[in-house]
């Protein structure tokens, strides 16, 4: 449904950037003893794409990845990635050909810099390739479950896995697609025609107008405190409980978990008034507030 956007060809951009996750965990270690301050030791969290291998066949991976990269070359260029080996372990297929895979990723312009979820042998192989072995305490595999309330606490872990599944989606659109830290996203400026906003793993709140031709997406609810003239898609990851709330409904399309209604099918008496939109037995309902 999202691929209807006229700008399909334009890929990636801002989406691909790693965003420092504000949280600084330790205070700077000031090296005051000898009076020098040549460096500070800090901790920061980053949201990164991960490549989760489910197949040991590097050639199959290469073929699939090639297609993806072709679609969104900018998205992958110079993008640091983490290789997730946990699925491989589970399926019992032993050592992935790590050197080959790393070469492949580099060939596509990505910067593989670490692995996670690998067996001892895999970790050793990774270390031999000078890749970091990321411990589970730093990056935990935790795909947001569909029946789980979407407003998962803003955890870094959710961010990492959400990135791998959702980045592709927003990469399909405009380069001004804005990605969020997991949890929620607040936009205070007008969302203009052609812009896309995606709140991964949570709610999206907008305190300004949403122009026709703009696209709002959220895994959770969408709140618009202003005229909603564009498209609004809540419950993107399949959450049937997600709702859309807006003060002034003039939308081109509203959708919850894939159940949508276009402008033409929105009753006139619901237009221009505050409404909520939700799923009732998988039927999209619009109700005055």
């Amino acid at each position, binding site marked *: 449904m999202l691929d209807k956007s006229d700008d399909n060809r334009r890929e990636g951009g801002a989406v691909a950037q790693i965003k420092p996750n504000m949280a600084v965990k330790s205070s700077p270690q000031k090296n005051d003893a000898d009076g020098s301050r040549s460096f500070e030791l800090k901790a920061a969290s980053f949201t990164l794409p991960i490549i989760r291998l489910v197949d040991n066949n590097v050639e199959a991976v290469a073929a699939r990845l090639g297609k993806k990269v072709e679609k969104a070359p900018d998205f992958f260029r110079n993008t640091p990635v983490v290789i997730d080996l946990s699925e491989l372990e589970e399926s019992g297929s032993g050592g992935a050909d790590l050197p080959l895979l790393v070469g492949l990723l580099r060939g596509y312009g990505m910067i593989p810099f670490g692995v996670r979820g690998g067996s001892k042998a895999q970790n050793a192989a990774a270390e031999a390739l000078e890749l970091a072995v990321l411990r589970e305490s730093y990056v935990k595999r935790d795909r947001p479950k569909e029946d789980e309330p979407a407003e998962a606490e803003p955890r870094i872990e959710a961010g990492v896995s959400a990135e791998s599944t959702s980045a592709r989606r927003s990469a399909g659109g405009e380069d001004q697609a804005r990605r969020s830290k997991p949890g929620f996203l607040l936009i205070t400026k*007008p969302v203009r*025609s052609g812009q896309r906003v995606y709140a991964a793993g949570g709610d999206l709140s907008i305190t300004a107008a949403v122009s026709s*031709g703009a696209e709002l997406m959220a895994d959770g609810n969408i709140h618009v405190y202003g005229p909603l*003239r564009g498209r609004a898609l809540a419950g993107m990851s399949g959450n049937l409980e997600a709702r859309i709330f807006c003060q002034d409904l003039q939308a081109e399309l509203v959708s919850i978990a894939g159940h949508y209604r276009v402008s033409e099918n929105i009753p006139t008496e619901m237009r221009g008034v505050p409404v909520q939109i939700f799923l009732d037995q998988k039927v999209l309902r619009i109700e005055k507030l």
Partner: protein
Amino acid sequence: MARIIVITSGKGGVGKTTTSAALAMGLAQRGKRTVVIDFDVGLRNLDLIMGCERRVVYDFINVINGEANLNQALIRDKRCDHLYVLPASQTRDKDALTKEGVERVLTQLSEDYDFVVCDSPAGIEHGANMAMYFADDAVVVTNPEVSSVRDSDRMLGILSSRSRRAENGDEPIREYLLLTRYDPQRVANGEMLSVDDVQEILSLHLLGVVPESKAVLNASNAGVPVILDRESDAGQAYNDMVSRYLGEDVPHRFLNPEKKGFLSRLFKG
């Protein structure tokens, strides 16, 4: 350091070049050293509107490619000493505009001038992107009709995300709205979007409303920026716009239909 102003719209034919010429001339008349650049490579028009088409030797692309230096390409306006025109190339296409080249030219101009006005081509492709990328201010020229408003809205989105200021996380581009080809009578008849209708969608700082006027076409034909036509409503509206841009508080004019005289009302019924 010069302030770089882009005149943009997304849609074609709304009055970008007319506005660029008027703004540049207005600034120069107020003693600001100003240069106006035509970014519409391949569809050069600004030189006609400015009336300097017979004095073009080198152009913007020659300067970018190092085939001429800036001073060779800049054309001094005969009516105003502070105004220079940098024409576009008619024989090349937009791809000749390289980001590095444009940046180099703009940086060089910034040292010597107060204002650099960039006349953007229509569309949201490379040429328009190059015109707006380095801008400090943007004047979004819009006609009071739905397609133009939507295109302006799209352009505003691009300004806030794809400019140098946006990419560097600097203070965002200052955005201004200029409504052109406004016909108060048709607005009163409900045939045209009003200023308020447009503002409801775009909500921008309104720099001016230029009424639909025969003076604009006459001025273009004569190669005289319409702002020099002090008699005309469009010329006056553009003058107000320049004053507002420079921070003066000038009330908006030409928003209401002209009151017809008693006799014309009597005879028209």
